[in-house]
């Protein structure tokens, strides 16, 4: 993308494609066709279509899938990976990657749970856990920006280091949690017979906040610009390193939130939990249409990506199909999503 102009780089591409055509009422037919073409090229169309197809399919295959209760369950099951995937999206938008996010969240759960287990104050425990995940995110960010190391290697190292710390600190045992504060996001209310957890609402709020920050603030435009063409971003005066660092710090905070959410769902901090969460989060991001090369994609796509994985798991189980087919279907979706991204990049380059 080196030929991109600085101006183009500073514009969030996902947004420009989705903008309505200018001019107001009754555009001429050719313009309407163009608008339709643009809408179909919107990177959210593919993931949304996949989600709809899966939902329709499972609704036809089973009697139990298309219920409000099940929708609520799928959301609850997608909370932790969804929140991790949101942080992952931010990092991938800057053309980075985070292999350590699951391990960081697990360490967060252990710090929170063990501190309370040893008689500490739950609020202090919570703040301590959140601080640690933010600091770990910042360390990754500093290693990437100050030392200029590739994010893949930095977070690979962090994955191993943090996993080891989690096992050492936990003494390889798990800690169950009974504090209402730490379990808060697993609580909820019943609405028309359907259980809605606070955690589900938080997930939607957090995604909305980051959707707004990315699409409507200068910080968001900087994130896209840095991922798209760092050199061009630097030339128009964007502080590239500071933007990247801010992304890793925000991701760290999200991992802390994921840790808190995880204790709400399963009130047990286990050093062996969430071992595939890093790759699961990348899967959600990629299926959601965000480009692994940075600068293209959206958090809405990531939410859809996480839901697709949840819908497949729930639907295939209820249809009585071996859950290895879920892995198979997810893998195929990843490859399809990356192929579509490559194709659209080639089109854009022409």
């Amino acid at each position: 993308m080196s030929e991109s102009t600085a101006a183009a780089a500073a514009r969030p591409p996902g947004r420009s494609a989705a903008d309505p055509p200018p001019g107001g009422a009754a555009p001429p037919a050719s313009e309407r066709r163009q608008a339709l073409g643009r809408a179909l090229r919107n990177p959210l169309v593919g993931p949304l279509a996949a989600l709809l197809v899966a939902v329709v399919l499972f609704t036809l295959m089973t009697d139990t899938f298309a219920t409000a209760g099940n929708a609520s369950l799928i959301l609850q099951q997608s909370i932790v990976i969804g929140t991790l995937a949101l942080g992952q999206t931010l990092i991938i938008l800057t053309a980075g990657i985070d292999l350590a996010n699951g391990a960081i969240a697990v360490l967060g759960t252990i710090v929170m749970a063990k501190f309370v287990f040893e008689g500490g104050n739950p609020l202090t425990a919570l703040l301590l856990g959140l601080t640690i995940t933010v600091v770990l995110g910042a360390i990754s960010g500093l290693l990437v920006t100050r030392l200029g190391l590739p994010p893949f290697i930095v977070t690979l190292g962090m994955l191993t280091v943090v996993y080891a710390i989690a096992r050492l600190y936990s003494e390889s045992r798990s800690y169950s949690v009974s504090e209402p504060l730490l379990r808060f996001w697993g609580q909820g209310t019943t609405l028309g017979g359907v259980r809605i957890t606070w955690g589900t609402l938080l997930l939607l709020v957090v995604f909305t906040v980051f959707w707004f920050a990315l699409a409507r603030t200068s910080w968001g435009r900087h994130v896209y610009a840095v991922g798209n063409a760092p050199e061009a971003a630097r030339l128009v005066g964007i502080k590239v390193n500071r933007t990247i660092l801010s992304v890793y710090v925000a991701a760290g905070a999200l991992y802390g939130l994921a840790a808190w959410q995880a204790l709400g769902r399963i009130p047990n901090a286990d050093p062996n939990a969430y071992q595939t969460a890093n790759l699961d989060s990348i899967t959600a991001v990629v299926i959601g249409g965000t480009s692994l090369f940075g600068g293209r994609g959206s958090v809405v796509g990531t939410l859809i990506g996480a839901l697709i994985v949840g819908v497949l798991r729930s639907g295939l189980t209820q249809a009585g199909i071996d859950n290895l087919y879920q892995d198979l279907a997810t893998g195929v979706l990843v490859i399809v999503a990356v192929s579509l991204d490559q194709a659209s990049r080639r089109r854009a380059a022409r």
Partner: protein
Amino acid sequence: MRSNGMNSGGRGRRWSTGVVAAVAAVGLLGACGSDDDAPAETDGGEATSEGDVTVGLITKTETNPFFVTMRTVATDYAQEQGVGLTALAGEFDGDNEGQVQAMENLISQGVDGIMITPNNSSGVLGAIEQARSQGIVVIALDTATDPEDAVDATFATDNFEAGRLQGAYVRAVLGDEEPRLIMLDGTAGGTVDTFRHDGFLEGFGLEEGDPAILGMENTQGDQNTAQTAMENLLQRSPDVNAVYTINEPAARGAYAAIEARGLTDQVTIGSIDGGCEGVQDVADGKYAATVMQFPAEMVRQGIDAIVEAAGGGEAPSGFVDTGSVVITDNPIEGIESEDTAWGLENCWG
């Protein structure tokens, strides 16, 4: 992954680590030393005087409480018996390479006997053969090799029997009620997994494929995966009244899902392992019973056998069942069981 039983086939959950490790290995190729990276040496490094019996212990990992118990017991018991002990472990579940290196190190160290919990039932056969050809007694603990007679002897839980006990107990609780069963398995095709599953069905009195089996799902023996699977299965089959679980973390996940639906009165959950956390869950009434296994027994009997062989006695042979006991506070006529007070005294982890 916590249950020892899960480890035999438990590579699925570790594939990410495997991928990452492979990438790292390629990246670091040539840079790393070859000997000291995989198996981590832990206890008993002190040199033993000549003539003493020396024993090597190789566990699947250093972190799983089941194997931590094995190592602690081995260290204490070896000291008690005046036996030299070197404890090694694979890096992660399924780490065959690390265990092979550990075998090689123990062979060159010239130990009298090796006890191993193989990560891969057939992957260590070469190293085992090499050890035995030099007169070292090799004993498999907890997980059998394939073929079983590749080692001198196997000291392990009879997992079919442990599954059968779980099945018999859960069925007895149901009494005259028509069974409606959900099975939370570990990993597809794991040997321990298959034994427990088949044993449960025999004890429960159902054939594989019976319509009374409302659903089966693989959980990797992981609480989170098990809870998600149970939630999804309950969505389809809310009328379930019996649940088989491969281990206690899976049982905890099942319980959470059932509790959230308010179905705890209608469902009987059984489990296997006998970890202290699991026994406490039974005491708290979360599941009806767990079948305890005895890792400490495996280690003690293994050390005894090696000492006897080294002293000119007969080498151990065959499969030795170290026993399994139903732990429940709700004993049922015709099924031997111990209560949770006994369980908490004898649990591992």
